[in-house]
């Protein structure tokens, strides 16, 4: 058999799988988003833009997502950057790998269980009870946007730390010494040398976290208690409760389109900032 034939044979199963389980479903969502809801739920073929015209009905979900996803990304960045800096620049090399693994490990354990842990901490007998002992009464955390934000930062922190660490680790430490030798204050060295050189890592981390947050369902479901909901929660409601497939498809399409637009604007912005495009790549 020729090399070409062999490659084609090796690629066929994966290709078919992607075709049936990825391309076909996405096409179905695209087509259904122009359809109508059946009398008993489901989908009736049609060509109408009615579903898209109805999008404002779910405006709250879009608003929450579009506020809390960027906010969560920024909060995660602000907490992650100093840690990544510590690990890459200040930490003793023999501890570095273990410390890094300790950051990543939680990310690979169930996000469901980790978010659920915050019900304890933020719930009535957790932090609010603790605050009561020092005289601060009637604080509510659980089922507020704050709880969702904490859950988001907690859940996605590892994903932010890792790429920033990688870009800071690659940074030539002699540049920092040179900058100090030339009389720069530590802050100025950071602002003019370290920060610009770590832009690719920051960009990758922000993008990864932002993309995952746009489709988030579990954290608002568990810590928002139905009061703070994302587009993901609206989708679950539309497909599993009200079985409105056509409208749900339009919401899903809109989510994906918003994601693609924000990510491409973001990529343009980052590449104009002078970051190396290759490093911004997701893979």
């Amino acid at each position, binding site marked *: 058999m020729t090399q070409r034939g062999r490659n084609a044979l090796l690629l066929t199963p*994966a290709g078919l799988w992607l075709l049936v*389980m*990825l391309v076909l479903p996405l096409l179905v969502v695209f087509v259904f988003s122009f359809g109508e809801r059946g009398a008993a739920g489901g989908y009736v073929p049609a060509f109408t833009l009615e579903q898209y015209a109805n999008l404002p009905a779910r405006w709250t979900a879009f608003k929450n997502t579009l506020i809390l996803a960027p906010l969560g990304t920024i909060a995660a960045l602000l907490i992650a950057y100093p840690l990544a800096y*510590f690990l890459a620049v*200040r930490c003793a090399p023999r501890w570095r790998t273990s410390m890094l693994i300790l950051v990543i490990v939680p990310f690979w354990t169930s996000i469901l269980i980790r978010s659920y842990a915050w019900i304890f901490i933020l719930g009535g007998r957790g932090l609010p009870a603790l605050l009561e002992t020092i005289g601060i009464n009637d604080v509510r955390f659980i089922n507020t946007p704050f709880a969702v934000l904490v859950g988001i930062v907690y859940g996605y922190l590892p994903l932010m730390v890792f790429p920033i660490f990688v870009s800071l680790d690659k940074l030539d430490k002699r540049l920092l010494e040179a900058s100090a030798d030339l009389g720069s204050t530590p802050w100025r060295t950071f602002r003019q040398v370290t920060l610009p050189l770590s832009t690719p890592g920051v960009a990758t981390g922000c993008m990864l976290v932002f993309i995952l947050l746009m489709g988030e369902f579990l954290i608002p479901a568990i810590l928002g208690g139905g009061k703070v909901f994302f587009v993901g929660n609206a989708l679950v409601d539309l497909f599993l409760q009200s079985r409105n497939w056509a409208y749900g498809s339009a919401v899903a399409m809109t989510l994906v389109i918003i994601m693609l637009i924000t990510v491409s604007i973001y990529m343009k912005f980052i590449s104009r900032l002078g970051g190396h495009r290759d490093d911004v790549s997701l893979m």
Partner: protein
Amino acid sequence: MRLYAVCVYLFLYAPIAIIALFSFNAGRHASQFTGFSAQWYGKALNNPFVMDALQTSLIAAFLTACFASVLGTMAAIALQGVTGWLRTLFDALIYIAIMIPGIVIGIATLIALVTVFGWLNPLVAALWPEGGTPPQFSMGMHTIVAAHTMFTMALVIIIVRARLSGMDRSLMEASADLFATPWGTFRQVTLPLIAPAILAGFLLSFTFSFDDFIIAFFVAGSETTLPIYIFSSIRRGVTPEINAIGTMVMAASLLLLVLAQVLLRRGAAKSAG
């Protein structure tokens, strides 16, 4: 700076520690520690619903990991020698598979399969010989595995491809020059070198499938996986039993992860040395 790092680690691990601690709580109240007991572990392990869900999750995760690592490795090897539109197409599909939110994958797979099954079932029934019972296609274990395999296969392709591109190609050329058949080269040269990456991909696929809630939630049909069970229990309220299950699940995932890390590390060391 060091103090800050300690605080972040506390933030990362305190919730996990709290769950583990409360899983040993003797009392029924989930938020008040009244004494040490392992009774909830016993309760969880003797709960038939938990055990059923666990079994479903383990089977789904195992099958997913098998399919994903075999298909992903095959594709990664073939993609080494593929250029042009086919390469671009595959790269784009892998990129899409990873970038599209899990929830969209979940709903898309649900409505696509329900629609396809809706056409397929009457068709098969019409073509089926008189007297026999035609098979009914519906959502279940196979759809969970199919959907999880789609995503994890993309991960395996990326991991194995990274390993292949870091490999010395002259080894394969030398093997061919020494008259090894392509299959012989694959079995004796390529496979041993990429084995750690495949195994790491297998373990990551297993962990992903085992932990996944959102995709399974849509495509599981009447099956209940462990995350689905935990999620519906949390909705009814927090219990020490769920803490015990959560602690066990996290401990098991950690074990698998450490294994994956060690394998990847050993693989990297082997190719460097």
